[in-house]
């Protein structure tokens, strides 16, 4: 009698322990899944802002001339590499950054003055193809100047990882996010509040009408290329500590930025940021939950689907041709 009770008591205890144990296991795995999810999310956001930063650069030239500048990625690379070169010559980092941005802006001016302006009257498509040629030229030039080596830039605020609820990010990621948001605000202010910005938009709508009301179209275009190149250079400088730079880094960064700009809506800064974030999150989640081998495929299929239903991007304005 007593033995049976003890046995029952024992088996009840065992069951309780088992239940407790499995509950703990489930709890642990949920916790782990939770922290994995959070890291995928944080990675997606930080990478997304990197793409957003580059995407914003595309919008300036697009807003001034309807042309997609395929050399934008090369501006990113040139900005980073010339800053690194100046810094290695002993110039303090802030001054080196200003120098690097100025050099890249100059390259933008050259591109407009010596190439784009000479192809006056070329259609939008032809000008875009000219910029592809320019991107190959810039890449070749960078290979001659900087060689095939890999360059790195010091992190602005150290490399101690920041912990966010079990996930991690680097202080440099905050610089990238801050940079993208600042550029977005600048962009809005520039095109809506300044005369130059408004003149740029006027040029994009109708060059002839713009020149008739006294806007110097050429000057506007030169400044659009200069500003665009400078923005590209700034994003290059912000990204370089995380991603490293080589003479050919611009190609892939440019492509990702272009995809982000198209996805969000070309010509809109908030669209660029939204597009960048979508792209970054898509990449991270498809690598995390589906397969890292197919992350680019999954990402581009989704972009194509979005563009199928919204050809002008998520925030893009609907094209309306006035007759």
């Amino acid at each position: 009698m007593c033995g049976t009770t003890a046995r029952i008591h024992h088996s009840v205890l065992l069951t309780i322990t088992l239940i407790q144990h499995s509950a703990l296991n489930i709890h642990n795995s949920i916790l782990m899944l939770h922290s994995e999810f959070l890291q995928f999310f944080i990675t997606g956001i930080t990478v997304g802002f990197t793409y957003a930063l580059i995407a914003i650069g595309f919008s300036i030239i697009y807003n001034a001339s309807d042309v997609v500048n395929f050399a934008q990625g090369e501006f990113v690379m040139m900005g980073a590499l010339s800053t690194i070169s100046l810094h290695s010559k002993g110039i303090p980092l802030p001054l080196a950054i200003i120098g690097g941005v100025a050099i890249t802006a100059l390259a933008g001016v050259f591109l407009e003055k010596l190439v784009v302006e000479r192809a006056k009257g070329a259609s939008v498509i032809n000008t875009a193809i000219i910029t592809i040629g320019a991107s190959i030229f810039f890449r070749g030039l960078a290979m001659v100047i900087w060689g095939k080596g890999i360059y790195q830039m010091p992190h602005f605020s150290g490399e101690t990882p920041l912990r966010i609820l079990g996930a991690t990010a680097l202080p440099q990621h905050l610089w990238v996010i801050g940079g993208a948001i600042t550029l977005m605000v600048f962009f809005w202010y520039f095109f809506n509040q300044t005369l130059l910005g408004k003149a740029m938009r006027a040029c994009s709508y109708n060059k002839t009408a713009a020149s008739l009301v006294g806007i110097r179209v050429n000057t506007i275009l030169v400044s659009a290329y200069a500003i665009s190149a400078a923005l590209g250079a700034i994003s290059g400088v912000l990204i370089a500590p995380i991603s490293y730079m080589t003479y050919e880094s611009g190609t892939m960064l440019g492509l990702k930025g272009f995809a982000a700009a198209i996805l969000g809506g070309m010509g809109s800064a908030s669209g660029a940021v939204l597009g960048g974030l979508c792209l970054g999150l898509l990449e991270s989640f498809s690598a995390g939950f589906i397969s890292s081998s197919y992350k680019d495929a999954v990402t581009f299929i989704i972009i194509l689907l979005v563009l199928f239903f919204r050809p002008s991007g998520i925030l893009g304005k609907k094209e309306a041709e006035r007759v």
Partner: protein
Amino acid sequence: MFKRFLTLFLATCFAWFSTISAHAADTIKIGSFLALSGNASILGDPELKTLQMYIDEINAAGGVNGKKLELIYYDSAGKTKEANDFVKKLIKKDDVDIILGGTTSGETLAVIDVVEQEQVPFISFAGAIEIVEPVKKWVFKTPHSDKMAVAKIYEDMKKRGISKVALITGNSGFDKSGLKQLHALASQYGITIVADETYDNNDTDMTTQLTKIRGTDAQAIINFGLGKAPAIVAKNIKQLGIKLPLYESHGVATKEFLTLAGDAAEGIRLPAAALLVADKLPDSDPQKKVVTAYKTKYEAKYGPVSTFGGHAYDGLFIAVEAMKRAKGTDKAKVRDEIEKTKGFIGTAGIFNMSPTDHMGLDISAFKMLEIKNGNWEIVN
């Protein structure tokens, strides 16, 4: 009339003498095709410099079997079509005694048929295992292959009692070939692959893939890659606070990697050729003398040494030794002697060729290194 006759006679004599003198100055013709321009030129350039430097040295010392060496080379730019054309030209027009070269695996594989058909001994400087597996009668190669790097890593893991690994590799040919070998050799070493992640070599962040790896029961991570991506992987691992041992491939056995990864590189292990750690080799190491001599000579003339020039050094001297043993340049005899190469100490390791092994290197060609205090140490 007589004057005319004399002139003709003298001219004939002159022509006759000059053929004799040309015959007396008979040389051993070494044909080569290398990628001297294009993407692979960073490999082909040190290969040519090495060949030129040592052929000059051998000639200054009297040549081989009393004959001078003559180098005839073409720039294939690493392209298969060009390589194929130049090899035909080397054999049919230049009438070379041996062919050394072929910077890339692609161009080497493209000329194998011609070389086999024309029966000319050929030593390639390219890496792919397919060049000598299966064995081709006239084809040899000097570089170590990815398979040996993988074997070296697995061997070291076995010693440390690691049996579960996570892989993370990029999308270049080098990464993919390594990945194939990582899968192929795993069971042989009792290794289970618990994660197999990939990235694009241009990606700027691999924390997602590494977070997935963190969620597995892997005891170590292997990142088989090239360029900047492995440095990003190392930094991401540090950022995520993952404490697992990290193995890299011989692809990042460069000073550049040490600077790029900085303190994230501490504790990383990787296989590398003896040439890169010449000064760290113990005096008892049989390769020490050879690699130090090559390194000193090359660096005095051209700057930092690379393993690629070393492959040319090994190829040239295996050929020269074989010609000495064959006492001439008879193609079939030289081929047989190359195949009999035993105990030749080169920059890539100690070569022991055989009818079934036309590379002749074993896993000891690689040293296992660990990065400590921003420099590498040899692990025993």
